[in-house]
């Protein structure tokens, strides 16, 4: 018996809790537990379907990362190191496997989307990915989940023209470096201005090189900017760029650390803003790419508001 397509499938896995970052670290397992609890107790989300992730095959990881980095990462966890390259990047024995499983969530989701088994998908994963570079980790990120998913969609299903829209408070330097020389892959990011914010990249004049000129759109916001400033960009430059781009598929790097209560950035978004973002990405994907929409969790560290922020975003995704 074939099940009717679910409106929204959440790809997650209890293994994601096994990436142990030690004490005094913002990127902790409780982030996911809180999100899942919030989504499960919301009665209006009764139609949500939950699926487990699967590990990304090595060759898909290698589409994004140098083998030398994968070896180094694997070796570091197996040898019992507690961090890699920087004390920000805390690891434990399970971290490599968990990161590969997080990178595989997008693949599992894309299969479901392409087989018509779900209308949209949201990967609730950790560790996050958008800071991870080809050969090294950055800012709590080890494998670039969004870019691995992008490569899979482009190569396995021929959805060549692809956009990643990133509303995490921080610039996704790893996604930018993957896309900045490519004519078919667009990266659009709204983030706190790099003069004040980690990782110090994402200036508006970074627009891509060579064939990729114009494939990067960085929209920095000043510290203190909130809903009004984000919505102006969302309904203005972002909507316009994605409309002109005419993508075959859309990936959203969904980070919730721009919330006014989240100390990881100086942005001042409200919880309700995430619903509007959800509505917009849903609308764009229906207008421009046949509804092919995949969201992947990035940051969001303030546990008192993370659950409700993700709830609001999901509410937006489900709007008609």
């Amino acid at each position, binding site marked *: 018996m074939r099940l009717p397509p679910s409106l929204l499938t959440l790809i997650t896995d209890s293994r994601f809790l096994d990436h142990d970052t030690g004490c*005094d*670290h*913002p990127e902790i397992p409780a982030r996911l537990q809180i999100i899942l609890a919030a989504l499960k107790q919301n009665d209006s989300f009764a139609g949500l379907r939950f699926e487990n992730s699967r590990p990304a095959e090595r060759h898909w990881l290698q589409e994004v990362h140098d083998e030398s980095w994968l070896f180094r990462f694997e070796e570091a966890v197996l040898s019992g190191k507690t961090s890699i390259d*920087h*004390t*920000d990047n805390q690891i434990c024995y399970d971290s490599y496997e968990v990161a590969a499983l997080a990178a595989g969530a997008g693949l599992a989701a894309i299969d479901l989307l392409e087989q018509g088994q779900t209308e949209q998908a949201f990967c609730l994963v950790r560790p996050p990915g958008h*800071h991870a*570079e080809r050969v090294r980790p*950055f*800012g*709590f990120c080890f494998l670039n989940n969004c870019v691995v998913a992008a490569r899979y969609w482009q190569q396995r299903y021929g959805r060549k023209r692809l956009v990643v829209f990133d509303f995490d408070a921080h610039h996704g*330097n790893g996604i930018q470096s993957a896309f900045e020389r490519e004519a078919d892959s667009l990266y659009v990011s709204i983030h706190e201005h*790099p*003069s*004040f*914010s*980690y*990782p*110090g*990249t994402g*200036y508006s004049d970074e627009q891509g090189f060579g064939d990729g000129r114009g494939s990067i759109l960085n929209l920095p916001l000043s*510290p*203190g900017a909130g809903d009004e400033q984000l919505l102006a960009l969302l309904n203005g430059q972002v909507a316009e760029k994605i409309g002109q781009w005419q993508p075959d598929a859309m990936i959203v790097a969904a980070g919730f650390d721009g919330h006014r209560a989240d*100390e*990881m950035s*100086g942005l001042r978004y409200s919880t309700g803003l995430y619903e509007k973002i959800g509505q917009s990405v849903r609308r764009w994907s229906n207008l421009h790419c046949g509804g092919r929409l995949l969201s992947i969790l990035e940051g969001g*560290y303030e546990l008192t508001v993370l659950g409700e922020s993700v709830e609001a975003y999901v509410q937006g995704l489900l709007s008609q």
Partner: protein
Amino acid sequence: MYISRYMIKEPLTVTPDMLLPEARRLLTENNFRHLPVVDRDGRLVGMITDRDLRSAYPSSMLAESERLLAYEQVEKAVVADIMSVDCVGLTPESTLDDALLLFDRDRMGALPVLEDGRVVGIFSSRDLLAAYKELFGIGEKGSVLLGIDDNGQKGFMTRIVTLLEQHEIPFTRLLRIYDAEHGNHRIYLRLNTFKIAQVVNLLREAGINTVV
């Protein structure tokens, strides 16, 4: 902070007797804007810029016959005819600050670097920008700039540094700038960590307030 680390070494040079079309070709092909002019011994005799060349060529506003005549003359002219001769040079021991002050004073785009009168390099305002970008860590991946409210207390900088070092928080730049308008100091700290909230809290607990 000597410019020798940042200058272009052994730059392309031209001789005073080179014909203008040839000099123009060199500038366009290499996408240069300045060329040092040297004698047989490599000694600086002048500088030639893309702007000098542009103004040497006849304006398109001229009548066709006049333009052709002027054009013929330019094609026969040599570098020595249009180069600027009274140019200032830097030395490998010049500092970035020397270069900045000279650029600022003379509105120059690039300066030759001389050793015993010989051209050993060229240093442009773009090289200067790149050097300062590196010095201040602008665009450095994995860093963040934090403003700190200077309360004017004795030993304030020491307290900041000690606190960071005790907690093994990597940082790479610490600047204290006097703000004449407000009569106080501003402090900027470049942290190389993503755990910003922890650092802000740590500083706050020690009575050190961060500002945007």
